[in-house]
């Protein structure tokens, strides 16, 4: 049972990849990439998790001596989310450009390179 969370992460990455390969619409492709990237969030958080440990923010209830979940992977996760959001925005902008230039967003019908 201990690898269950890791398997969920791996499954999300693979399902996102399958979605990208089968995609018939560039917007759908971008959403599939987001699904694949969310697998990396689950993996990072699963690595940092400890049973019963509180969040790594100290205050009146969590003293600095308690064992918290790993803050380093959470900070990596923050970077991951920001980069994922910017990549999504960039790819959607490219999809808009492709739609305006070629009149289609089906990757199978995009055969030529045009500026």
């Amino acid at each position, binding site marked *: 049972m201990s690898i269950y969370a890791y398997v969920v992460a791996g499954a999300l990455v693979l399902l996102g990849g399958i979605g990208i390969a089968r995609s018939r619409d560039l917007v759908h492709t971008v959403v599939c990439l987001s699904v694949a990237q969310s697998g990396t969030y689950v993996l990072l958080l699963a690595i940092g998790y400890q049973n019963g440990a509180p969040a790594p923010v100290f205050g009146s209830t969590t003293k600095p001596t308690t064992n918290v979940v790993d*803050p380093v992977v959470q900070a990596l996760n923050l970077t991951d989310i920001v980069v994922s959001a910017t990549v999504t925005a960039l790819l959607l902008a490219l999809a808009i450009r492709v739609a305006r*230039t070629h009149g289609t967003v089906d990757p199978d019908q995009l055969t030529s390179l045009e500026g």
Partner: protein
Amino acid sequence: MSRPLRWCVLGVGVAGVGLVMVLAFLRMPAFGSSYHPYRDAAVPAAVAHGTANVVGSVTFDQRGIDTLGEEAIFFGSVLAVSVLLRPADDEEVRSEEGSLAPLQSTRLFGYLLLPLTLLVGLDIVAHGHVTPGGGFQGGIMLATALHLVYVAGRYRSLEQLRPMPLFDSGEAAGVAAFAALGFAGMAAAGSFLANFLPKGTFGQLFSAGTVPLFNVAVGLAVGSGGIVMLGKFFEQVFTVSQDEGRHGESTAS
């Protein structure tokens, strides 16, 4: 490549990668175990610098150079979206809009939530070093708050509330402030992005040295950048190609 052949290649690839992943997962530390060497190093370092939010300390103090890179990625992406979505030679932006007014309840909801979201966003930026939150999260909330005007009202009222040149420079100023804080650390403490300010009392608003300043810089950059980026996407609705006709009866070109 034909579609059936593509699915065969895909099936082989997915099965292979899946197998390798499971083999790797079987040899990883058990889920939920107490073995966390990074945690054991990061928490004392954060407490030594008086930062109650350890994630904030890792992001802006211990791993500041990575976050500077992340800021640069965000800045570059906003820039690239602006360049990609600018009107081409045969396109123009028209500020027409439909006559559909939103529901009264939607308007009320939007106008009630606008000040609330702004306030929560500012609070998340300001207390990023003592509570969960920080510049990235708060900045996105601030950008979202402004767009409640669009949900509740009309695009034109959003345009009036949104002086684009101001937010363009706001984003640049945020990124520049981040780098300037880094160089200030170099001048005051001898290393780039060093936490050179007094650390204050642990868990209080004035604590953690430079971390709250980094949060404000990032909040400014992300909030302004988010508004600029969403603005470019909004503009697309009103961009019409000249050979497409007035209401965009699109004919594949």
